[in-house]
C-alpha cells in the first residue's frame, strides 16, 4: 500500500478545539497528505471528539489505530491516554509510557517521532494551550527540515502554549485560524 507522501500534525490543548473546527471545513478533498490531530482532553470525551470533528469535515476522520498505515486525505485523532508515534515506514504506533508535560497524548512525542519519520515532508501546527507541550517537538521538526507553524497568540483562547513556542522554537509562520486550511492545503500539495 502506498502511504501518504506528506504529513501534517496539529497539536492543541486548552482552547485548541475551536481553531480545529474552523480549519476542518476548508481542507481540500485532494489533500496529498495525512493529517494527525493531537488534542489534550479528558479520556471520557473520546468518541464524542471523533464524531464532532467528523461532522465538520468532508474528509474521513477516525481514531488512530496501532500499526495502521497513514493514508492521504485521512484525518487521524490521537486516542486519549496513549502517546501516538509515527514509524519510519509511515505506520502508526501507540505507547502507554509515562506522561510528558503532564500529558498523554503528548504533542512533543508525536511531533518528534513525525520529524524523524517524515523529515522535510512534515508540517507541524501548534495551537492554543496552557502548558509547554509542543515546543520541543517544533524544534525537532525544524531540525529535520519540516515546516513549523503556530496559531497567532492574539487569537488563542489560552495564549501560553503558542507564545512559549514562538519564544523558544524556530517558527516559520504564525497563522490566524481562518488562514490555517489554505496553509495546510498548500503544504499538502493541493
Amino acid at each position, binding site marked *: 500500500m502506498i502511504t501518504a507522501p506528506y504529513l501534517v500534525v496539529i497539536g492543541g490543548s486548552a482552547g485548541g478545539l475551536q481553531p480545529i473546527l474552523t480549519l476542518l471545513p476548508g481542507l481540500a478533498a485532494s489533500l496529498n497528505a495525512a493529517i494527525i490531530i493531537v488534542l489534550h482532553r479528558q479520556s471520557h470525551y473520546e468518541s464524542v471528539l471523533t464524531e464532532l470533528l467528523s461532522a465538520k469535515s468532508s474528509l474521513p476522520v477516525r481514531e488512530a489505530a496501532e500499526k495502521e498505515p497513514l493514508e492521504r486525505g485521512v484525518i487521524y485523532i490521537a486516542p486519549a491516554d496513549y502517546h501516538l*508515534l509515527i514509524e519510519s515506514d509511515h505506520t502508526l504506533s501507540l505507547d*502507554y509510557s509515562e506522561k510528558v508535560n503532564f500529558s498523554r497524548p503528548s504533542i512533543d512525542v508525536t511531533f518528534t517521532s513525525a520529524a*524523524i519519520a517524515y523529515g522535510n515532508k512534515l508540517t507541524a501546527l501548534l495551537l492554543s494551550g496552557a502548558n509547554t507541550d509542543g515546543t520541543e517537538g517544533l524544534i525537532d521538526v525544524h531540525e529535520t527540515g519540516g515546516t513549523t507553524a503556530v496559531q497567532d497568540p492574539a487569537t488563542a483562547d489560552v495564549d501560553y502554549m503558542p507564545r512559549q513556542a514562538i519564544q523558544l522554537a524556530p517558527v516559520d509562520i504564525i497563522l490566524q485560524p481562518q488562514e490555517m486550511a489554505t496553509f495546510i492545503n498548500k503544504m499538502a500539495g493541493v
Partner: protein
Amino acid sequence: MSRNLISEQEVSLLLNDVLERYGYDFTEYAPASINRRVNHLFQVDRFPSFAEYRYRIISDPAYALRFVEEITVNVTEMFRDPSFYQALRTHVLPVLATYPFIRIWHAGCATGEEVYSFAILLKEAKLLHKAVIYATDINASVLEKGRKGIFRLSQMQQYSRNYMESGGREDFSSYYTANYEYAKFREDLGEKIIFSPHNLVTDGSFNEFQLIICRNVLIYFNKKLQDRVLNLFSDSLEQLGFLALGSKETLNFTSVTRKFKQLENREKIWRKVQL
C-alpha cells in the same frame, strides 16, 4: 537532531548487542517507541557519545540490565479502564466459577497493579481461594515490587474511583493498609499470585489457562512478533478460555482471528472457540 542524537540504525546496533551478549531480544519491537526510550536513557545517563553508551552496555552487565529495564514500559494503574473490569465481573467470572480450579496468566504485568485489581475481583466473587494467578514480566525489578504489593498512597484516590466505576461495592481502603506515603495491599490478595520472570519473545508456554490477560504489551511489538505471541497465548488457553487485551489492541487481521470469538460488548475480551 540536537536532542535525538542516536539514529534508528545505531539503536538497532545496540539491540543486536543486547541480544548477542545477554539474550534479550528487542529486535522485533516497534521501532518508534524503543528509539524514543533508548534516546531518553542516553540523555538521562549523560553519555558524551554513542560509542561510550555502546561500550558501557557491552562491557557492564549491570548497566545492560538497567538498559533492558529502562527501555521497556512499566506504566500501569489499578482498575485501568473500569468498563473492562466491569465486563470481567459480568461475563468472565461466572464462567470461571464453574471450574474446580482456576488458572490465570497475567502476561506483561509490570509492577502488578492490574494483577491486584483482578485478585480483588476474584475475592469479591468468592473465587480467589480456588484460583492461582501467574503474573509474569521480562523485568525482574518490577516483579519484586509486585510481590511486595506496596503502591503509592497518592494514587489511591484515583484507584478507588476506578474501582467504584468498575462496579466495586466495598470500601476500597479495606484492601490495603496506609503507611506514610504507601499503601500495602492485604496479604490474602497476594497469596494466590505467583510473580515470575517470563519473556514473551523467547519463552514458551508453561501451563494451560482459562484466562490470559495481556494489556498494552502487544502495542510495543511489530506485527510478526504480535502474531507469534498471540499463537503462544492461543496454545496456552484451554478450549473456551478467555483472552483479554488492552483497549486499543485487537485480534482482527492476525493469524489467530478464526480461533477466537469476541464477547458481545465493546470490551477487548475474546473466547477461544477452536483448538
